[in-house]
């Protein structure tokens, strides 16, 4: 409280700035913890982050804003800027430092983009702050030997782990997608990616697996996600005459546009997309006619029909509150917050390291998508992937990809 009073003495500018602080330190905080999320809340990714935040808020409310003896306060930070219309490095770094330096903050949910995670991970790692991502799937963030040289140690300068993700990484998704394609008898594959950390990563893992399975990878080409359309490019895809086109990327990096241009050029090949394109916005952008019946998405976890009781309750609550069914982002947002709340309850003290350790020790978590644990890299053990198809203008569950035969290319055919 002394600090608060002294601040009022400083000049005009400081008062304006200081009122942030004042509002923050009015209440004593012994039994209060703060959890922040850092997501691109303005610009192109707004819809998907809206879903994540809805999931997070629902988890907080389900827990009646409590974790053990602590009252939980949730703060939704934006890492995007208006001028850029997307996440910015500055925004993510500022959010990470803000969380690292705020002694009330006990967990950091986010970010959305793997590229942003590369910025905030070292900062939060030094601060020993628990970081739970509902969306990063780039393999290099956690898995040694799969990403760039030096990954993931370069994100862990303190040598300890603090980063957890509740989504299965691309080394599972990409190869499983290839297996699925192989099982459907598709052999001529054209791989397109958005050149981003996520898109390039998952597309390359997909292409590698295709080659292992003896499929023909006609080409792997990166598009410019800043372009307005891909008509001229699609023409050259068509000339290669593939029977499957794989797009490594997201709705925000023009997945819908690519699907639309492919259909516009009369392409009849199957289009397979990763989880980053699994949202209604993808279908809205592509137009129903362009993707109906021939576009498939790989999605982590099991379909809602096979959800646990907890999952069914979540579906009901979410629909009651927001008037629409939850998408994958909402599910992972909800799971992230529940993991955090469980870790704080288990640690039972306001100590970042204790909470992080509790989260890393998560075992047999009763999740919406089944039971899962956190492995030694900080990854979820959830390895189930489902394939969704576009029917009647929506993504609907098609089948679950069997995970047997993983790691041995001979078995899956």
């Amino acid at each position: 409280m002394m600090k608060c009073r002294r601040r009022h003495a400083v000049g005009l500018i400081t008062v304006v700035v200081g009122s942030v602080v004042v509002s923050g330190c009015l209440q004593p905080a012994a039994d209060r913890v703060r959890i922040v999320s850092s997501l691109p809340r303005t610009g192109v990714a707004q819809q998907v982050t809206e879903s994540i935040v809805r999931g997070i808020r629902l988890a907080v409310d389900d827990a009646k804003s409590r974790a053990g003896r602590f009252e939980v306060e949730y703060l939704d930070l934006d890492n995007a800027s208006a001028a850029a219309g997307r996440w910015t490095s500055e925004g993510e770094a500022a959010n990470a430092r803000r969380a690292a330096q705020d002694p009330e903050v006990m967990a950091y949910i986010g970010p959305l983009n793997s590229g942003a995670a590369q910025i905030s991970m070292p900062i939060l790692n030094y601060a020993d702050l628990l970081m739970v991502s509902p969306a990063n799937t780039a393999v290099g963030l956690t898995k040694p030997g799969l990403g760039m040289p030096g990954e993931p140690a370069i994100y862990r300068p303190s040598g300890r782990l603090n980063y957890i993700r509740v989504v299965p990484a691309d080394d599972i998704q990409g190869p499983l997608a290839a297996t699925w394609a192989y099982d459907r008898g598709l052999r001529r594959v054209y791989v397109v990616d958005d050149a981003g950390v996520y898109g390039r990563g998952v597309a390359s893992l997909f292409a590698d697996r295709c080659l292992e399975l003896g499929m023909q990878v006609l080409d792997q080409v990166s598009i410019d996600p800043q372009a307005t359309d891909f008509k001229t490019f699609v023409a050259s895809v068509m000339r290669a005459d593939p029977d499957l086109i794989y797009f490594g990327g997201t709705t925000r990096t023009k997945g819908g546009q690519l699907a639309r241009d492919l259909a516009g050029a009369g392409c009849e090949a199957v289009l397979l997309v990763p989880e980053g394109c699994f949202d209604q916005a993808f279908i809205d952008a592509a137009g129903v006619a362009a993707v109906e019946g021939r576009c498939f998405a790989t999605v982590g976890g099991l379909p809602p029909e096979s959800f646990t009781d907890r999952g069914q309750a979540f579906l009901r609550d979410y629909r009651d509150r927001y008037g629409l069914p939850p998408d994958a982002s909402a599910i992972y947002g909800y799971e992230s917050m529940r993991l955090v709340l469980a870790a704080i309850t288990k640690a039972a003290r306001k100590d970042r390291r204790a909470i992080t350790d509790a989260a890393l020790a998560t075992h047999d978590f009763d999740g919406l998508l089944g039971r899962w644990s956190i492995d030694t890299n900080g990854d979820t053990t959830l390895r189930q992937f489902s394939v969704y198809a576009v029917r009647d203008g929506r993504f609907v569950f098609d089948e679950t990809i069997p995970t047997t035969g993983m790691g041995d290319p001979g078995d899956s055919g």
Partner: protein
Amino acid sequence: MTLPAFLQQCVLGLTSGGFLGLIAVGYTLVYGTVGLIHFAHGDVVMLGGCLAVGLLSLLAPFAFDPLVGWLMIVLVTISCGFFCGGLNMAIDRLVYRPLRQAPPLAPLVSAVGVSFILMNVGLLWLGSTDQAFPDLVTNAGSPALRSPVTMADLVVLSLVLPALIGLAILLQRTRFGRSLRSVAAVSRVTTPTGGADQFISATFFLGGFLGGVASVAASIHTATINYQMGYQTGLYALAAAVLGGIGSVPGAIVGGLLVGLIRAFSTVVLGPRWAAAAVFLVLIVILAFRPEGLFGQKRRERRPA
């Protein structure tokens, strides 16, 4: 590259070049009359696309026949033309006109401000993601038809060509058109008398109208629309205007077609990620040899502030 592939890229390049040229005319006209790079022009076009999406989604259920659909598109295109023309005129009236006597860079900042506002309107209108542009006639029959020219290209041409012909008639046959040509060729209007203000308003309307026509053509070509489309398309159109020689209407059209063709062929030859770099590199090379652009006149020096 095989001949059909070559023809296909030509068609794609020329159709996209056509509407880029129409948008470029908007930049060129405004620059020619008031000496301002109208940064918000691309976003005016984007809002035209928003309006077209709105109107066509309303009308789509009644498009039982491709011909009816095509008529609807023409109707919507004309409405978008008037909408964008009016919007452009209003921007000039409210934002640029009070700054006629201000230091030369002040209107530039205001133009950026207008662009931000229009983008925000588009963001609230469309949401942050791509929206599919309704198919009326555009995909009818095209998947089966494996010719280099798709239905969408034909519809785009059926909008762009009449606009170009109309523009040519306007410039050749009317007093307003002739004075536009002379203004663009000689110097900008400096004395804001009543007549000049009317003339400038008319110029903004014409640029906006063509932009409105182009917005529908661009949306049909791209087949989606989003709130950042104005920025991306606008940058290419500005490049086209400069390539042709800013201030020159035929130059803007030729510049647009060239930009479209460069984009189409660089995608195939260099890969889709190099299209933007290729367009801008060609522009730099041309400007190094002909600073006034292909059709531009030598201009006097203008000093910022």
